[in-house]
């Protein structure tokens, strides 16, 4: 656990509500922070994860029309004038609507201008499958941005990481995409009762969630929790799994994974989303290319199926890798 837990008083809170808490703490810390999106203000957000901010911060929190391209563009423009905008895109799937603004404007502005400006924009999006929202409201869209240099990508999987990473994202001078997993909204955790910088989680640092000897399982968000479940099941058979949550996809903390592999020599990556073009394949390619000699067994990707996210429960459930599938793959690998 890389988060430094100090002795400060803490409070219980869930993953959904900690979003408003992190936003509030940054809005309070830095008057340059502003926040815009659809129904984020008066209504407190489609998921009620931004409740109370409008009342507390007034004009610095703004409801927008349904105009995702204008939302991202306006955030970039405001950033160029010295603000630190946080933009909400309600569901990550809608990133498609403003993809140009994200990849061609936000990601490239600084580079194209030869470094003349900083573009400290944070884009928050509700991410992922498992809640029955159907093909256009369930995609793990973090995989759409890996090939676009210029965007940091964070994928918090716990309440503490959501709090610490969202605050770090807002403080970062680069564009950061924050993916908030819808299916973790009810997850419980603890954050400091008062804003406390000791709880910031640095962007780019993986978390070794569980230590083990036989295999390294790398997983984020929902899959992190399923990997832990799988590790429990495996423990019963005498196999110990090390579970790593990278927490940030760009920049990726390869060092922590490599360190683990020196011990385990076996890599399993569990990724929500279709296999091709995702961070899982990227990680496996990277390890295979640069650390081939560490591997005693085929590095293995467990991913969703190469089809859209189906609506109906039996199909959607099957689309998402589960703990027993992860455990089965690991058992095969340790016997390789």
């Amino acid at each position, binding site marked *: 656990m890389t988060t430094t837990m100090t002795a400060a008083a803490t409070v219980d809170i869930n993953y959904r509500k900690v979003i408003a808490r992190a936003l509030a703490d940054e809005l309070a810390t830095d008057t340059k922070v502003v926040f815009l999106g659809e129904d984020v203000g008066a209504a407190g957000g489609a998921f009620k994860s931004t409740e109370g901010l409008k009342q507390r911060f007034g004009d610095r929190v703004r*409801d927008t*029309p349904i105009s995702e391209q204008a939302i991202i563009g306006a955030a970039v423009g405001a950033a160029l004038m010295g603000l630190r905008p946080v933009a909400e895109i309600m569901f990550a799937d809608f990133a498609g609507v403003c993809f140009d603004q994200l990849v061609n404007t936000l990601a490239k502005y600084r580079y194209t201008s030869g470094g003349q400006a900083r573009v400290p924009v944070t884009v928050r999006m509700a991410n992922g499958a498992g809640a029955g929202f159907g093909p256009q409201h369930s995609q793990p869209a973090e995989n759409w941005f890996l090939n676009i240099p210029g965007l940091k990508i964070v994928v918090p999987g716990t309440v503490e990481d959501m709090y610490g990473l969202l605050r770090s994202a807002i403080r970062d001078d680069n564009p950061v995409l924050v993916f908030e997993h819808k299916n973790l909204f009810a997850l419980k955790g603890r954050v400091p009762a008062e804003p406390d910088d000791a709880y910031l989680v640095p962007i780019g640092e993986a978390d070794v969630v569980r230590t083990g000897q036989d295999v390294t399982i790398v997983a984020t968000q929902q899959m992190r929790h399923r990997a832990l479940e799988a590790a429990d099941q495996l423990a019963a058979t005498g196999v110990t799994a090390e579970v790593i949550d990278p927490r940030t996809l760009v920049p990726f903390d390869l060092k922590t994974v490599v360190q683990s592999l020196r011990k385990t020599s076996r890599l399993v990556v569990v990724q929500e989303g279709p296999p091709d073009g995702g961070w899982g394949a990227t990680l496996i390619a990277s390890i295979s290319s640069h650390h081939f000699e560490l591997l005693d067994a085929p590095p293995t990707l467990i991913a969703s199926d190469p089809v859209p996210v189906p609506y109906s429960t039996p199909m959607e459930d099957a689309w998402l890798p589960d703990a027993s599938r992860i455990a089965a793959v690991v058992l095969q690998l340790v016997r390789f």
Partner: protein
Amino acid sequence: MTAVQTETVTRDRLLEMQRRMCEIRAFEDIVKDWFSRALVRGSTHLYQGQEAVAVGITSALRRGDTTTCTYRGHGTVLAQGAPLDRSFGEILGKANGLCGGKGGSMHLADLSVGALGSFAIVGAHLPISVGAAWASQLLGTGAVSATFFGDGAANIGTFHEALNLAGVWKLPVLFVLENNLYGEYSPITTTTANPELVDRAAAYGMPGLRVDGNDVVAVFDAAASAVARGRSGQGPTLIEAMTYRQSGHSRSDPAKYRPAGELEGWLARDPLTVAERRLHDMGVETAELDRLRADAEAKVRRAAERALSWPEPRPEDRFEDLWVH
């Protein structure tokens, strides 16, 4: 805003429209109940209060014409003739649902009746209907396309691109703007620089008609004139139907943002009541109207029962329907 001539609808025709509206109402009441009982996951967006728009517009269409609509699309798809049971089935995620359970509540589609689908991305479907109308123009079929969307959708880029393209190519499209005063929760004046949405038609070289969206006859008349225009090659029309969403935006919305009395005012002008008043004036007895409503409800209930009894898809069905092999 062009004037609309009303009273073109016969008693039988209006009774048929009322029947459809009653079915849609009963359908949505059941869906609402199912959601509150967690029989359906994800989100749902109900159509109670807007029935006159879907029924009025689709009543002016003929076989071969098409529609597209939004996540709030149960009413439109049903109005066009999709089967009640398989529509319920899709919302329940059943194998026998309209889309085999792949789409769900936000994605009802029945191409056999011309319902090209419900789209869950605001504004994404407007260009689809433009494309269908382009095909009609190229193939000379005379078919028109109607596309339904909300007041909130009028601020997204695709609205602009779709209306301009249909306008410059003079395509047979009915742009049906269902102005129910709110996006999800935001009142239109907080999101729209000029809330006189019907006036936007001029920018796209097409006529704009604003109609009482709770009066199925007024909607029908506007649609009929727009359809005639479209079929004769004169191009698209923007119809702004003023209406009201009687439920909240979605399951989780208590709709607290409504000013006091607003809902009540609109309930007094419920589309089913407005149509009943008209039918009354045409000499239809209250008893007949009550029977019509009761019959519709019973029919819808039976369809719901059937859908509930159907099996779920098998997990392996998820691999089907992506590719044409």
